[in-house]
């Protein structure tokens, strides 16, 4: 049973990752190219004559090791492997939730878990530390920014746990339970967002429209992944649950 779910999560995660890759390629690559052109222009202006003096130990600066064409192919590798990893972890979480928390129907549980997972793991960190195109962000701070980003993912997941616990313990009907659960999710997220340090490394003169479009495309890529994965996984679970048909391990 767990094995079936894990294989299903891995296969459908890979598939949904490739679907998200198609969206990212069509909607995102033009924005990336624009941002990289600005990045190169800024670098050329900044470095001037002493371009490679400080990095004497063969340390590569950005860009020359892998061609843009390979990076565009790498996009599909990245989204596919990302989907594989997320799909596998999702399937194991789903296996633990099933029959314990959430909707009784397998398909509804998969959709609910994917929707809540998207909110906790993607939307929460995005609201505090939104995606940045090339040319935005100081390479020196990438370590601390990554930790802050991971911190917001943990905040999102803990807030879901608090919300679910609240929903199950608040007395009264749905008009008490649902608002309580939503508040129990939103309040810790807002408090953490106010407490954690801001990141604002947009260089002067970077076009606001391009930044907005890039961020929207990035969120869209994740939305395409989580929506396709939740739908595929839910469909496969519902299909497998039907007793009159042979079980299909996707």
């Amino acid at each position: 049973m767990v094995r079936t779910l894990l294989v299903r999560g891995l296969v459908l995660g890979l598939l949904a990752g490739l679907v998200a890759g198609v969206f990212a390629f069509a909607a995102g690559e033009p924005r990336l190219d624009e941002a990289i052109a600005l990045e190169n222009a800024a670098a050329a202006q900044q470095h001037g004559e002493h371009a490679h003096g400080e990095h004497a130990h063969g340390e590569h600066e950005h860009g020359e090791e892998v061609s843009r064409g390979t990076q565009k192919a790498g996009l599909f590798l990245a989204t596919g492997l990302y989907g594989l990893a997320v799909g596998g972890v999702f399937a194991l979480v789903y296996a633990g939730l099933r029959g314990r928390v959430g909707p009784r129907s397998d398909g509804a549980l998969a959709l609910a878990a994917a929707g809540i997972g998207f909110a906790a793991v993607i939307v929460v960190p995005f609201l505090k530390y939104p995606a940045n195109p090339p040319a935005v962000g100081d390479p020196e701070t990438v370590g601390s920014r990554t930790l802050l980003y991971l911190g917001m993912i943990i905040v999102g997941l803990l807030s879901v746990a608090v919300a679910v616990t609240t929903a199950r313990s608040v007395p009264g009907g749905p008009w008490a339970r649902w608002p309580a659960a939503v508040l129990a999710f939103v309040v810790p997220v807002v408090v953490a967002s106010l407490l954690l340090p801001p990141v604002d490394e947009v260089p002067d003169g970077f076009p606001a429209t391009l930044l907005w479009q890039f961020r929207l495309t990035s969120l869209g890529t994740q939305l395409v992944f989580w929506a396709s994965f939740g739908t595929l996984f839910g469909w496969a679970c519902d299909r497998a649950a039907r007793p009159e048909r042979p079980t299909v391990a996707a």
Partner: protein
Amino acid sequence: MSTMSARTASTRTIPLSRLVPWLLAVPVLLLLGYLVLMDNGAVSQAGGYLHELMHDGRHLLGVPCH
């Protein structure tokens, strides 16, 4: 015609004893996620290669890239 059988919560629950051994896959999957989204050579020992190869994906999946 039999419709979907009304199954109780208990029959759908996967016992923890059967689930726990599979959780060994989680660190492997998280490592894969790390290599795709965040590695800059520290773990992979591949220098900046993974960073460059996964560059577009990292930006468009929304993680801090550089």
